[in-house]
């Protein structure tokens, strides 16, 4: 009798130890696959928008993706849901991957369109699709504004507001 309850007790101890051990190991293993701190900090990119020249596209790299920065010329209409406004100036800031199948569209300065060579998709200067297969506008990356610079990867109040307007 005493023997039996002793074995049952040892069984429970084994079960508990194994359970705790399994959960702890799984957590540690999961953590090894998390992005490294250096990777996470490289995921925030700060750019000064003031030196941009209106009507000319600049492309920077953020989290391995191209990001389009376009300062609007005065003939470009305003689009409250998509323009980033800093002082007097309005900007289009979007991830430069076609929402159809991920090619990188080019900016045609004279026509004021983004044109995707892969399947002929087109977007207006706010990066809203106007022609061809793209199913939605180019994506706006999370950003926050401070002064004349924006930080990509950080969800600021302006970005959150944009999400509600989309």
């Amino acid at each position, binding site marked *: 009798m005493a023997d039996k309850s002793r074995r049952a007790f040892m069984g429970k101890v084994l079960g508990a130890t194994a359970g705790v051990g399994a959960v702890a190991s799984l957590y540690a293993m*999961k953590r090894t*696959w*998390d*992005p*490294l701190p250096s*990777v996470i900090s490289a*995921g925030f990119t700060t750019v000064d928008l003031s030196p941009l020249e209106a009507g000319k596209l600049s492309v920077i*790299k953020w*989290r*391995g*993706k*191209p990001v389009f920065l376009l300062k609007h010329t005065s003939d470009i209409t305003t689009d409250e849901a998509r323009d980033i406004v800093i002082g007097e100036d309005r900007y289009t800031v979007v991830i430069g*991957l076609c929402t159809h*199948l*991920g*090619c*990188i569209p080019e900016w045609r300065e004279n026509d004021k369109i983004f044109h995707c060579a*892969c*399947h002929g998709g087109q977007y207006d200067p706010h990066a809203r699709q106007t022609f061809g297969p793209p*199913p939605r506008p180019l994506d706006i990356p999370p950003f926050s504004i401070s002064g004349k610079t924006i930080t990509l990867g950080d969800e600021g109040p302006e970005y959150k507001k944009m999400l509600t307007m989309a």
Partner: protein
Amino acid sequence: MAHFPKAHGVGEWLDHRLNITALKKVMMTEYWIPKDINFLWAMGMILAFTFKILLISGIFLLMYYKPDVNAAFDSVNYTIMQEVGYGWLFRHIHAVGASVIFLVIYIHMFTGIYYGSYKKGREMIWLSGMLLLILFSAEAFSGYMLPWGQMSYWAAYVITNIFGGIPLIGDELVVWIRGNFYVADATLTRFFMLHVLLVPLAIMGGIAFHFYTLRIPHVNNQTGEDIDFGKEAEKYKENPKRSKIIPFWPVFMAKDVFVLSVFLLFFFYLVFYNYGFAMDPVNFDPANGLKTPAHIYPEWYFLWSYEVLRGFFFDIGPLKAADIGLLAFGFAQAILLFMPWLDRSPTVAPANQRPYFRYWFWIMIVVLIVLTIYGKLPPTGTNAWIGFASSIAFIVMFAILPVITEKEARTVAGGKK
């Protein structure tokens, strides 16, 4: 302590300690195989052998391969292909082997489906086989990433992106799998580990398990006859000619090895003279995360399921095209697992002797071939519609399988003849 008598000779000495005679009996000389089978039953051994070829060629590639985004491409395309003595040979063997093993897996699977070798006690053989298919798919996908060419990169990008479709955790899951916000060095090094260690280990375990699942039900035969292996074994010992079965070793192996030799001739013909199909030209451009190739497509053996993924290209009601595609893709991956339960007829017989199943089988093959062909073509215009129609056909085929086999079970009274 056990008692060990003095041994006469090395064999006996080992036998006392390892019981080799009994082991040989159980595993080989008294493991029984039906006589009434054809060359299609050699596919399993061909698979085991091709896996061995992949393992050995892989070990040789591993000595010069460098898992680093800056070094990987050159270590393969320059060091191994140009400098290492016969490096090109090992690479061609490995690439052709990876492609051909899927051809043989598909033949092996459809042999099983054709002869109904997944039911009446053989369900675990089927399930362990599907486990191997999943493991081989993981192995092929992770291996394809290693040369770090354009197709490596973008296939990795597209496939890891698929997990983004999972509700709630999708986006974070993709970052976790990649170890970065995009496909990067962390992605390469972890898939390298999977490809050279964890998945091959799992495959070896999987093969051992697959063999073990064959042990009790034994392999099927050309007519689906339910053989009493115990009785036939007795008969064999009296007179081999009158028995319906033969021992695996050495009698059956002699035949298997013959088919294997024919296969190897074909295999090495491909390796030396026709390896191009296993080496995509796009992958000879180094990976570039800022430049998408005009068309992204997987290797031929994934095309059918890739086409199911892309087949649904328009939204239906509240469902987005991409989500429908993802659901269909998940369905395609999982449904074959349930083959033993979708086939509701107890009859174990070749497909051509089963009333509705004979059509089902060949239509299924045609659907898969169409999906495979269109999976490679750009998804535009008519191609997109053919892809859509064949994806629907694929799903419908599995939906009607229980219905037609139920009907078969009722018309062919008593089921098994």
